[in-house]
C-alpha cells in the first residue's frame, strides 16, 4: 500500500506548464530524494502535495484520502503531512518553544501543558531542549531549521516534505540539520526531500527522483541513479553538480 499516491499531476502557472503529468507512489517509511535543475518543478511538486498550490489535473492522495482544495480537506491533509522550508519560516515573535506549541494549541486544541510537554520533547529530539525560551533571531540558521523540524514533528505527521532545507545554511551548519533528518529516516518517517546534497541522497534515501522539465525523468534506487544514469540529461546534471 502506498502512503502517498501522485497520479498524472499537472500544474500550470498561466501558460507555463510546470508539472506535466507526475506519477510517484511513496511507500510508508520511504525516503525519497528529488533532484533536478532549477526550474524543473521540484518545489512546485512539494507545494502541491501540501496543498499550497492547487493542481490542475490528476490526483494526489495521502494515506488513502484524496487531496481536495477545500478548507476542511486541506486541514486534514496538513495534519498528516508536515513541510519544512528553505527559509525556516519560524514565527519571529514567538520563542522556539512557543513556535512548536502554537499549532498544537490552535489547530489541535491541545491543552497548554500538554503542548508544552510535547514541545520540550520535540526540541530535545532535535537537540535543542535548552533553547526553549530563545527567540528565532537568537538562534543560528541550523538551530532555526531544527526548531522548524521540531515544529512540524509536534503535529505528529505521517510524512514530511523538505524543500532544500539546508540550502540557506552556512556549510558548517548543514550537517547538524542532515543528522536530524537522518535520525528521522532511521526511525521510519516517510520523507520527500528536494535536495542538492547528493552524498546524503546516496547514503540515506531509498529512492531518487530526477525531475526534468516538469516530468519524472528517471526514478530508482540511489545506486542505479547515481552510478548508472540512463538519460543524457541526468548524466549531464550529475556531471554538473559533482
Amino acid at each position, binding site marked *: 500500500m502506498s502512503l502517498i499516491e501522485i497520479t498524472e499531476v499537472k500544474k500550470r502557472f498561466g501558460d507555463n506548464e510546470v508539472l506535466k503529468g507526475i506519477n510517484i507512489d511513496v511507500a510508508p517509511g520511504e525516503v525519497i530524494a528529488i533532484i533536478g535543475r532549477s526550474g524543473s518543478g521540484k518545489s512546485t511538486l512539494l507545494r502541491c502535495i*501540501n496543498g499550497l498550490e492547487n493542481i490542475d489535473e490528476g490526483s494526489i492522495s495521502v494515506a488513502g484520502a484524496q487531496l481536495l482544495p477545500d*478548507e476542511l480537506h486541506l486541514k486534514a491533509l496538513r495534519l498528516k503531512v508536515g513541510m519544512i522550508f528553505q*527559509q525556516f519560516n519560524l*514565527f519571529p515573535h*514567538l520563542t522556539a518553544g512557543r513556535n512548536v506549541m*502554537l*499549532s498544537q494549541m*490552535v489547530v489541535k486544541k491541545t491543552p497548554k501543558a500538554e503542548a508544552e510537554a510535547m514541545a520540550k520533547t520535540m526540541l530535545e529530539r532535535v537537540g535543542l531542549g535548552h533553547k526553549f525560551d530563545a527567540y528565532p*533571531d537568537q538562534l543560528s540558521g541550523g538551530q532555526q531549521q531544527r526548531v522548524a523540524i521540531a515544529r*512540524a514533528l509536534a503535529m505528529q505527521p505521517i510524512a514530511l516534505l523538505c524543500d532544500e532545507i539546508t540550502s540557506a545554511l552556512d556549510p558548517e551548519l548543514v550537517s547538524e540539520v542532515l543528522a536530524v533528518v537522518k535520525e528521522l529516516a532511521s526511525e521510519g518517517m516517510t520523507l520527500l526531500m528536494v535536495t542538492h546534497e547528493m552524498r546524503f541522497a546516496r547514503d540515506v534515501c531509498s529512492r531518487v527522483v530526477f525531475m526534468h522539465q516538469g516530468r519524472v525523468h528517471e526514478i530508482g534506487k540511489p545506486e542505479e541513479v547515481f552510478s548508472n544514469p540512463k538519460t543524457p540529461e541526468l548524466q549531464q546534471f550529475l556531471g554538473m553538480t559533482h
Partner: protein
Amino acid sequence: MDEFTTWDILRNLLLAARWTVLLSLVSFIGGGLVGAALLFARIGSGRIGPTFVKAYVELFQGTPLLMQLFLAFFGLGLLGVDVPAWLAAGVALILWSAAFLTEIWRGCVEAIARGQWEASSSLGMGYVQQMRHVILPQALRIAVPPTVGFSVQVVKGTALTSIIGFVELSKAGTVVTNATFEPFTVYGLVALIYFCLCWPLSKSSQILERKLNVAHRNH
C-alpha cells in the same frame, strides 16, 4: 477698551485647545476602529470588500480634507439634516483618518513575509488563526511607528475644521485676533501650542521606530 495681557490670550487659546485635543482623539480612535473594519474587508478573500475599500481609500486620499469637511457640513445640510459643526467635523475626520490608517495597516500586513503564511498554512491553521496568531502580532508591531506618526496629521487636520465654524484652537486664534489686534502674538502662540501637541507624537514615533528596529520582539 480692556487691555488683553498675553496671559489672557494664552488662557483663551488653551481653553480652545481642549477641543482640538478632543476632536483629535475622537477622529483618531474612531478612524482607527473604522480603519480596522475596512482593513479586514480589504485583505479578506471576498470580491466586493476589497473593491469597495480600494475605492473608498482612493476617494478620501484623492480629495482635499477641506472638501470632505465642506461636503459633510453643507451636503448633509442640503438633505435637510441640520448638522452642527462639531458633528460634521467629527464624521469627516473619522472617515478621512480611516482611509489613511487602513492603507498604512494594509501595507504592514503585506510586509509580512509570504513564508509566514505558508508555514502556518502547512501546520494546518485556517485564515483567522493565521491572522490572529501569526500575521497580526507581527504586523501590529511594525504598524506602531507609522500609526503614531499619522496621529500628527490628524492633529493638524483638525485646524481645517475652523472653516466650517468649529471652535478649536485655530478658530479661537482668529477670534482672539479680532479682539486684540495682535495677530503675530496670537498666531505665534497658536503655532506653539500645535507644536507642543505634535512634537511629542512625532518624536515618539521616531523613537518607537528605532526601538522596534533594534529588538523586534514581543515580550
